[in-house]
């Protein structure tokens, strides 16, 4: 089996996000980057499948060479190799990212599964896996909390976290699965694996290699602003005071 895993770096999700003075972008000065948490869930799932089914796990990222540190972290977790699609100044939207990943899929032979995080915690779009599946004409199972691959590696049974409960569907492989948080707990890389990861291959391709000529964005960010701040209210001293205010002031009881 061969499993591709989309692996994106994002600004440390626990860091405070600041805008540049003109509000045109997020201030990236002295920010730290980490792997997108959902991508780590996707990679962990791929590694677990690989342990059972003898699969090659290949990371794919899109970005400049400063993304290689994140790729090395994924390689240290256990991926066999990585592909970086070089885009330096090119802005991306979900659609272009999906078209690039679709081109990588076609470039790689015999891919059985494309695993992605359900969303990246920077853009929060939750689109790329679904777009990719449509572009490749493959079935999809999004927001996975459990994945089981049958013995022949031909079908994946996936439990999906949906509104109001858990849905189980079975998809034929090759297919696209996006990971939700509860899918697993990503492993920590051990020191020897971190050393080993330094020697693993990162292949670099550019958009010409992938024959992507149309780099026009479909959706473009025009400006950013901070959300309106909510006014902090008063502290109450006791349960009695709280219940009184809820009943008589807010009138919600």
């Amino acid at each position, binding site marked *: 089996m061969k499993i591709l895993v989309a692996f994106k770096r994002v600004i440390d*999700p626990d860091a*405070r*996000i600041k805008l540049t003075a003109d509000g045109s972008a*997020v201030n990236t000065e002295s920010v730290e980057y980490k792997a997108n948490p*959902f991508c780590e869930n996707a990679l962990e799932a791929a590694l677990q499948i690989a342990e059972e089914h003898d699969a090659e796990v290949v990371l794919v990222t899109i970005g400049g060479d400063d993304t290689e540190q994140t790729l090395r972290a994924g390689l240290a977790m256990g991926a066999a190799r990585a592909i970086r699609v070089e885009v330096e100044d090119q802005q991306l*939207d*979900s*659609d272009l990212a999906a078209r690039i990943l679709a081109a990588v899929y076609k470039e790689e032979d015999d891919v059985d599964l494309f695993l992605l995080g359900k*969303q990246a*915690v920077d853009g*929060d779009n*939750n*689109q*790329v896996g*679904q*777009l990719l*599946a449509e*572009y490749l004409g493959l*079935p*999809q*199972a*999004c927001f996975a909390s459990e994945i089981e691959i049958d013995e022949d590696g031909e079908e994946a049974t996936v439990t999906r*976290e*949906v*509104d*109001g*409960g*858990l*849905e*189980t*569907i*079975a*998809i*034929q492989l090759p*297919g696209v699965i996006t990971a*939700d*948080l*509860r899918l697993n707990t990503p492993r920590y890389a051990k020191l020897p694996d971190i050393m080993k990861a330094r020697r693993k291959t990162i292949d670099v391709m550019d958009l010409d290699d992938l024959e992507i000529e149309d780099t*026009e*964005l*479909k*959706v*473009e*960010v*025009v*400006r*950013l*602003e*901070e*959300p309106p701040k909510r006014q*902090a*209210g*008063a*502290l109450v001293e006791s*349960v009695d005071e709280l*219940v009184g205010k*809820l009943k008589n002031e*807010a009138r*919600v*009881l």
Partner: protein
Amino acid sequence: MSNILVIAEHHAGSLKKGTLAAATLAKQLADKVGGGFDFAVIGGGVDGVVSELQGYGAGSIYVVDGPAFADYLAQPHTKALVAIAEQSGASYLVSTAGTTGKDLMPRVAAAIGAGMVADCVGLAEGDELLFKRPMYAGNVIAAVRCKTDKTVVSVRTSEFDTVEKTGGESAVVAVAAEPGEVGARFVKFDATESERPELTEAEVIVTGGRGLKDGPTFWNMMNPLADALGAAIGATRAVVDSWEEVPNDMQIGQTGKVVAPKLYIAVAVSGAIQHLAGMKNSKTIVAINKDADAPIFQVSDYGLVADAFKVLPELTEKVKAARG
């Protein structure tokens, strides 16, 4: 013929209220670009849903109804929605940003070559049509431009009121659609067993955080309060990540559910940014936490600095008394 298509979300034969909030965005869109809206319904045996949609001012209600569409699967539903969009001639396809909308709409966007705006929270002021949407766990609101002829939008329904009935009958139009090649099959749906209202539809929500010690304690503390209030129970990401007894679909926050009830009571919740993004539009927010510096107090209307274990039983009793 209307230019905006609102995709109805329904489950077990009844309409989900979020659909009517998505219709509000459609109306705002119509105010800006002109035109009006239609509804689209896809499923197997959806007559009930169609009649629920009558009276809201839609031009038409387009329906794909058949056994091949009875269970939601992304591929056949994409085909059905594309067929409806072609017939209605819509320029804007609008759905809720529930899990079905999130699953389906990007596929539809790819199929028709449209750009997609996810989780729309409103339209920007000004002449140009720009959609507002949250990024970075709600820490940033972006104004985005969709440059394609057709635009797909999923709507964060907690940001919109539902449309009011205006009376009048919408024409029901049956649309023929083929499911196409389907590489997936539905196996089962396990509904969250709960007597309580669904989180995204609840008027009162009580949410417990990591301060509640462990899973069993979480339920022992939250159940009586929720009973007293007729509330839904939510949880923080830390809780659903750590305690098996609390399922993930109870998670409120940027990566979970986004809610805006009339009353939101956060118990032993510190108020991580990603949690605040999921609840800060609630009308009245109450925070109970023993740490006076917890960020949750910065968004709460009423804060009580206290140990949840000490005050929750008292609160439960007094809420019961106050509600008579």
